[in-house]
């Protein structure tokens, strides 16, 4: 008999902060984290000493971890977590921070995802990314995850009849959303023709299937709803959250993700269903993964992803708003901040801070996380349903 999982009632997420992205920076991650914390304090009116919990995700802090950051930036938290899980870190930081607040181990937790990007950062990160990447995929020359996701995309296309145009639809609609996001790195519209004729990277992956690595940070605060109201902060509440690692390990090639394992529980926690959601922020390292999230998070059946995207417009004003900030494909991927991008955008959408790209009357949204490609697939998945306060 499964133990009943505690709800996330009473937890608020607030103060969405973005440190603007740059392509390359000579600064270290500490600089971007510092800027994110400054932004959180400025927007919330809190003092630095008020932050008594820190949940941090970054790949470029080495040899430091979250520990070094406390001394570097002059924090003295009573709760600390270093969550280096890339694209899943936004969801995972939130889940851990929420429990800490509920248990009273911390009152105000700053959740920050930040990375710098030097000209050779990407290559350096890859070489030491994981044992299995070093031993079994890095030697094969892709110089990154492109060839792995090429395999996944190719297999998915062959199995379910998806075409490049189907993936193009996702990228094109996200770009339209990005035009309403002043922080997005890409400022020009993208047509399906341009998407299709872009140069191949590792076929069937072409240029606009790939995110652009950059430097930057995303951050938010987790506290009790009571505290948020007391501070007068616009906030969202956590209706449900799941995570799963190394799911479906026996699948020879990835065609489904860990969300599928626990998604029924996610909706049960939130007492809702897929059709009730007003927007999703999928993790879009590659369009094929966004499509898998549509399937595995219950918006359509497995294999119906292509039909689904053909039948919907995924812009913030469309029938199925997805990645309303433009997602990583259009906003850029600032390392681990890519795992926070969707969460920060969801908070903006639910607190009326999304400007020109606001989803009309957004009440409920889902943020999915996916990350840590170690060998032939990503290992971490997660999802959170956020809603407006009652």
């Amino acid at each position, binding site marked *: 008999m499964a133990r009943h999982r505690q709800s996330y009632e009473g937890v608020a997420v607030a103060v969405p902060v973005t440190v603007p992205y740059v392509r390359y920076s000579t600064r270290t991650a500490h600089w971007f984290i510092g800027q994110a914390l400054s932004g959180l304090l400025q927007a919330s009116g809190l003092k630095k000493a008020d932050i008594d919990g820190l949940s941090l995700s970054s790949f470029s802090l080495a040899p430091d971890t979250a520990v070094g950051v406390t001394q570097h930036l002059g924090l003295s938290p009573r709760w600390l977590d270093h969550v280096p899980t890339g694209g899943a870190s936004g969801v995972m930081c939130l889940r851990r921070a929420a429990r800490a607040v509920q248990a009273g181990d911390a009152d105000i937790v700053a959740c920050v995802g930040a990375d710098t990007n030097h000209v050779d950062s990407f290559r350096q990160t890859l070489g030491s990314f994981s044992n299995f990447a070093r031993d*079994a995929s890095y030697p*094969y020359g892709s110089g990154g995850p492109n060839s792995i996701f090429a395999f996944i995309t190719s297999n998915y296309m062959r199995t379910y009849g998806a075409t490049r145009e189907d993936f193009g639809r996702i990228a094109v609609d996200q770009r339209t959303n990005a035009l309403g996001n002043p922080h997005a790195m890409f400022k020009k519209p993208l047509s399906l023709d341009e998407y299709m004729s872009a140069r191949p990277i590792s076929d069937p992956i072409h240029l606009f299937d790939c995110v652009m690595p950059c430097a930057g940070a995303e951050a938010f605060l987790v506290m009790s709803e009571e505290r948020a109201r007391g501070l007068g902060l616009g906030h969202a509440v956590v209706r449900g959250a799941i995570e799963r690692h190394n799911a479906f390990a026996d699948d020879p*090639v990835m065609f489904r993700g860990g969300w599928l394992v626990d998604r029924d529980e996610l909706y049960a926690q939130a007492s809702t269903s897929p059709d009730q959601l007003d927007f999703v922020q999928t993790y879009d390292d590659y369009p094929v993964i966004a499509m898998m999230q549509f399937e595995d998070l219950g918006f359509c059946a497995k294999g119906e992803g292509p039909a689904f995207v053909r039948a919907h417009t995924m812009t913030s004003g469309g029938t199925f708003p997805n990645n309303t900030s433009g997602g990583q494909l259009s906003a850029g991927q600032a390392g681990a901040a890519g795992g926070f991008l969707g969460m920060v955008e969801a908070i903006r959408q639910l607190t009326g801070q999304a400007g020109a790209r606001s989803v009309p009357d957004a009440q409920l949204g889902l943020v999915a996380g996916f990350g840590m490609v170690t060998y032939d697939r990503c290992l971490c998945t997660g999802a959170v349903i956020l809603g407006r306060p009652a």
Partner: protein
Amino acid sequence: MTTPLIRPKRKNPVLRTRQMNLPPSGRGRVALGLTAAAAEGRFELQTCADCGAVQYPPREACCKCLSVRLRWREQPGEGTLLSTTTLHHSNDLFFRERLPWRLGLVHLDAGPTLMVHLHGEVGDEPGPVRVGARLDRAGQAVLIGYPKNGGAHMADDTMLREMTSDPKFRKVLVTDGKTEVGQAIVRALVKAGADIVWVGHAEPWKKLGGLEDISALPQVTLVPLDLTNGRSVTELAGEIGGKVDIVINNAEVHRTFGIGARRGTDAAKAEMDINYFGLLRLAQEFGPALKGRSADGATGATAWVNLLSIYALANFPPHGTFSASKAAAHSLAQCLRAEMRPAGIRVVNVFPGPIDDEWNQHVPPPKLASGTLANAIVKALRDGIEDVYPGDVAQEWLERWRDNPKVLERELAAGGT
């Protein structure tokens, strides 16, 4: 069908010679088990001794039952090709210089999923494929997806050629052409399509026979080379070092003495002076030029072969000083391998058992014929193997040595062969 390799055009001498960028060379300790097997031409994966699960990538504990009793076992490599992709972009310098490059994702019948370099003759997915392991230019094992049935020019696949040292269209130095083994090696190289074979010979007044026959071959050029004479080595390196693609050091002195059977050190010194110091002189003089040309076109510098002996592993007391000199040469050859590695030059060590020549007259058969040894060397170059144990005696001694070297030492000391 693979396009057969054509003889490359003459190089434009005013252009800078392309330098070697190695493919990613880091591997954890456990993963080096793959490299150790590929060095001998085998594709091995860990198999759990308790539940039988085959593991990949290599690891410390069974991914099914957590047992730590993981054994490396040779794999047949049969599998299904799930996905292919062609790299058109890479941040890695080695691959960036060699685009486009084809990769595949294979579901091995034995269980795991493998990322592999794909041979050009493997069709698009889905389909059957056979996986093997080869050493790449960094000297580390990588997995290769081969077609089930390869065409006639399979070996000329550009990806596969980066893993091998085929003598075809290459220029080779054989350091001693005066022995039967040397002459057999020369013939085998000519047959394998080498453009030029420089054949070294020392003490031209000592005629052992056979040299005239091979010097009649159009590819062969005799060159004076005395590995005991530093100046001889320096001068030859000055003349041809910049053109040599493969060095095959087969020069050796072999006497049949242990310690007590021969007073004085002169026989042992003669053995060391060629078998060990000869290698040192040769490597000092020919090494740098070889390293400088390791990425020089499709038929650039590629390999260094040392003719050692299975006695390098465990001393054969009746040929005790010879064994010691070969052990010294083996150790130095390992040093050479480490020094050649940054340039992507493969050092091939050959450990034959007794060769059927005048110094092994008293050794009972099986003995290795010169032609067999020569063919084993050419095959090792073609297959990219770096540790070669040709012949039944070498294979058996290797097994006994790996099983328990102390037991082998006793067996040999008791007069066993």
